[in-house]
């Protein structure tokens, strides 16, 4: 567990870059891409958090060995 903050930081960095490149690809104009970015970042990280929560619940419910 001591590595958890580093893993979260790496995920935040790589996720932010993935979303930013996606926004640039979706919008040919820089200003429009920039305007799109906050909403996309929010959607991506919120979606990721939901997936994490579901996985943790599944693990705790079906795969716990304690």
């Amino acid at each position, binding site marked *: 567990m001591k590595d958890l903050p*580093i*893993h979260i930081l*790496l995920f935040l*960095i*790589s996720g932010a*870059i*993935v979303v*930013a*490149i*996606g926004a*640039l*690809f979706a919008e*040919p*104009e*820089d*200003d*429009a*891409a920039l*305007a799109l970015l906050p909403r996309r970042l929010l959607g991506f990280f919120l979606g990721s958090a939901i997936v994490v929560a579901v996985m943790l619940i599944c693990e705790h419910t079906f795969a716990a060995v304690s």
Partner: protein
Amino acid sequence: MTPSLATPRKGDPIVAMLLTWLVPGAGHLYLGRPRRALAAFVLIEGLYVLGFVLSAGLFLNLLPAEMRGRFAGVLTPEVGNLGALLVHLSRVGFLEQPRAWPAGMHLGMALTAASGVLNFALVSQANFDARVGESSPAQRGPAPGFAAALTWLVPGLGHWLQGRRKRALAIFVMLVGLFLLGVFLAEGFNLDRERHFYYWAGQFLLGLPAIAAEFLAGHARLDHDVAYLDAGVVLGCVAGMLNVLVMLDAYGWSEDRRLGDEPAPAPTPARSEA
């Protein structure tokens, strides 16, 4: 939509693409552009042949025995130059007995892989040339395939030449930064094709930064535990794969310019009256 500034198409785009995929330049020969065809053939096949000679054609022999098969080359950059890869495989398959790699193995593999990536850019250009023929001189700028090839070489370079300087810098900083973070985490042990055959293909899509990093720090002997090796491998590969999106963006922009379909300006936000 503004009318197209290009002349009518010169041939079937699918035929031009398939011909180019099999033999670099063949698509342009089919489209009646022999000089461009010859230049592309000499450059791209030349890279492949030189790489083949330097590496003795052994790159697929880096794969462990359980991963060797008929389609092992499908996920390599070399597949972009399909004809050369097929001839290559018919000449040098998988060796029964292991042998020492030649001195020019790494450089040779970089050249054959570069030949494949550049031929993908040429395939896209052949498709464009078949669809639109000659574009108007008023719509000059880097050709779509050329913009994509430059963006492969240096992320953002195609955008820079298109005049999109801020976007170019942002792309370069993000992608090369992500790649270098991966190299830092993996202490450079993510860079060797022998160690990570298919991840190497992903990171190779980042172009010169990945090639330079590999030759500067990528071939050391792994003699200790690297705590974040896996994370570094993944981040380096993701950076390269994101560059494919960036290449498509550069291609699309140049295509729109040459077709006269310039992107609509962003809407001005409405101001509320006080």
